[in-house]
């Protein structure tokens, strides 16, 4: 009897209890839902036609603090430099890959967001010139320095782009494991204390390459592509010369030149087998990736002024 009473009471309570009606107001306006309104400038139109439509890549040159480190002093890029910079990137990165790997390759693989920043990012004593997040976003700094006549700077910028794109490739399909065992002892987290010369003696293409096998792999790719085969060959020869010179050798355990050649061979095979990309010219008269990028860098003024 008591149970029934309580049960009945609870049922009554359930039915009569609070029935607040909270309607969503019909006239609610969410600010900038679907993006901020903007009148497209000439720059915006160019970016839409050249990056958004063909590659679905977003190029952000207008200031958005939330794309960047929140604790650093940074400034936006000069708008007038945006098109020259993006023409350079298109001519020396996208187009060479399209030629060697087909038009869909970049569309499938490329990072989807480029963030352009005018100043360098100052750290404790060093500056950052480029950063990538998970192969989807590339941030490039110090672009207000960009000048079509400064090929040294352009190579540095393009090395960053090729470097980050290298990560995207090997994160999609890993390079052969044997690459990690060519110079396994030399990888170090304190790569910034390794001089370029020491890196060479250990069989690396740069100091940063000693950071990890992944960095090593993409440094090989980006430096060979941006600085050319000749520069790489010179480094290999120099490394071997030091190894063979008893006065300079100083207890080196292996020939660093040979190590560099081994890495190069794996890189060539990886690019060809996985992505059908020829690093070097496959046959006389047919250009590989390196030649195409070098040609573009040598004609950079023409590409930018086009």
């Amino acid at each position: 009897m008591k149970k029934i009473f309580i049960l009945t009471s609870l049922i009554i309570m359930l039915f009569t209890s609070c029935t607040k009606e909270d309607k969503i107001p019909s006239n609610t306006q969410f600010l900038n839902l679907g993006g901020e309104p903007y009148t497209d400038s000439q720059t915006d139109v160019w970016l839409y036609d050249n990056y958004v439509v063909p590659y679905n890549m977003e190029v952000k040159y207008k200031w958005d603090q939330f794309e960047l480190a929140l604790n650093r002093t940074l400034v936006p890029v000069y708008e007038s430099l945006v098109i020259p910079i993006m023409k350079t990137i298109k001519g020396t990165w996208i187009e060479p890959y399209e030629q060697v790997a087909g038009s869909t390759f970049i569309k499938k693989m490329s990072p989807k967001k480029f963030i352009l920043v005018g100043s360098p990012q100052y750290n404790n004593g060093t500056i950052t010139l480029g950063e990538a997040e998970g192969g989807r976003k590339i941030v490039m700094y110090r672009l207000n320095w960009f000048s079509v006549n400064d090929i040294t700077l352009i190579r540095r910028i393009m090395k960053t782009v090729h470097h980050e794109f290298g990560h995207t490739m090997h994160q999609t399909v890993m390079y052969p494991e044997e690459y990690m065992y060519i110079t396994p002892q030399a990888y170090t987290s304190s790569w910034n204390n390794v001089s370029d010369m020491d890196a060479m003696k250990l069989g690396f293409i740069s100091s940063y390459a000693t950071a990890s096998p992944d960095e090593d792999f993409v440094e090989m790719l980006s430096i060979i592509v941006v600085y050319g085969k000749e520069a790489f060959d010179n480094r290999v020869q120099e490394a071997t010369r030091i190894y063979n010179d008893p006065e300079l050798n100083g207890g080196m355990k292996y020939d660093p030149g040979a190590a560099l050649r081994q890495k190069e061979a794996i890189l060539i095979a990886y690019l060809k087998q996985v992505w059908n990309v020829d690093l070097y010219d496959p046959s006389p008269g047919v250009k590989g990736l390196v030649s195409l990028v070098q040609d573009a860098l040598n004609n950079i003024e023409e590409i930018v002024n086009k």
Partner: protein
Amino acid sequence: MKKINIITLFTILLFSISCVKDQEKLFPQDPDTRLSEVLDTYQKELQESTYGWIMTIETKVGGVYRLWIAFTDSYSVEMLCDMDATWHTKAVTSKVVSQSTYRLRAIQTPVLVFDTYNYLHLMADPQGTNSSYGDINGGVNGVGLASDFEFTIDSLKNGKFFLTGRYNKVKAFMSKATMKEEISIKQGALKSVHTKLGNYLADVKFPVLDIDNKLYDVKLGGRSSQVSFMNNDAVESVSVGSYLDLSDYSHDNISNNLLLIDPLKINNLVINSFVFDGSDYFVQIGSNKYYIKDNKKPSIPLNLGYNRDYTQLTIDDSRLQGSMSESFFNNIYLESRQKLFTNGRRHMQYAYIDFIMHPVTYQPVMQLSIRYNNSSGSVFIARWRYKYIINEDKSITFLEREQTGSSNERLQEQYLKSFVDYFCELEYQSYSTSSWNNTIISNTIPKTFIIDWVQNNTQGSIDMLGAFIPINNKNNYCVGILAK
């Protein structure tokens, strides 16, 4: 049992009817609608100023900067600024209007963002000094002048926007420019007001205010101003951000009113601005006007000594023409030069005095260095160190003197003796040209000086001058150029 049932029933009924279903809104509309309305108001206000806006922004490092900003449509702005900085197209940033973009955003509060690079970004650029790129703003690398280009709009009052930077939290405000202001700004007035003040200060080198027989040194500046004065034997300074008024600007006027971000408070005095009456600056305190006058030298005492504001004094006749005392120049300086010349045509170039730490005793000492060259042009420096005490009346007494160990002073002292003796005189029982340690001193005559500013009478010179003034022969003072 029945009692419990009734209580339960009552409680349940109470619960059932307790719910209040009406909702009273604090604001008639939801936050998004309200924010959107505010942004629309701001947008309209920004664009409606016919002659643009003048932004006054106080950076954290470099004081106040001013910009002219015209919001031409909902996204574009035009700018001019009050300095000429490194700019990629090498435009004159105070005269060539540059275009960029801005937007009003709702980031919880209304925010004004200048989202592509323009003159306002020059102050915020972290590349303060860069040898290969050029100095953008002269600030520290990584920080710049600690300025902002993203602002929270705090309020819009009487047609004036009050802003706070989102990153460095700098304060800024924008007021509407008049037609007259826009015309003069487009001719470069933002920067030329600074030039005008600079010209005024070239004539009035040491501006002071004399308020009720107390002197206040005033450092007038187009970015910040400072007042220094004596407060119970100690120097006190008060600084505030300042900027030059453009409302009464004309091409011909000498200078303009100097306005302050906050009033300058000195004890019970309050200075609101430095008003320019066409030829002079004055401050209005109560009903009294106090004019700024040129004191020819600072009114606060010269702080020269070890680890002080100034630590060096250079005595160089070629840079001090007309400012040296005749007596010192003829009897000490020139005499030493002539005597040294008799020793193989050695030429005394100049001398300098440093207050340094003694390398052995770790006591502060005064070091006199005399620089000379031989006939073939090689340069030598002879150095003497003087031990000193500061007396109660702030005068300085040089008690002892020693050579610093090189053959330069051992061999040349006899020719330079009047200069070296000027600060502390020695008589020798025997003098050794091979070692200072072998020299035997028979008598030491300490000398006492007052250290003070001296008026700079050298044409074209803007150096700050100080002097050692002998207490017993005040006309025989030794003047030098002060350095830190």
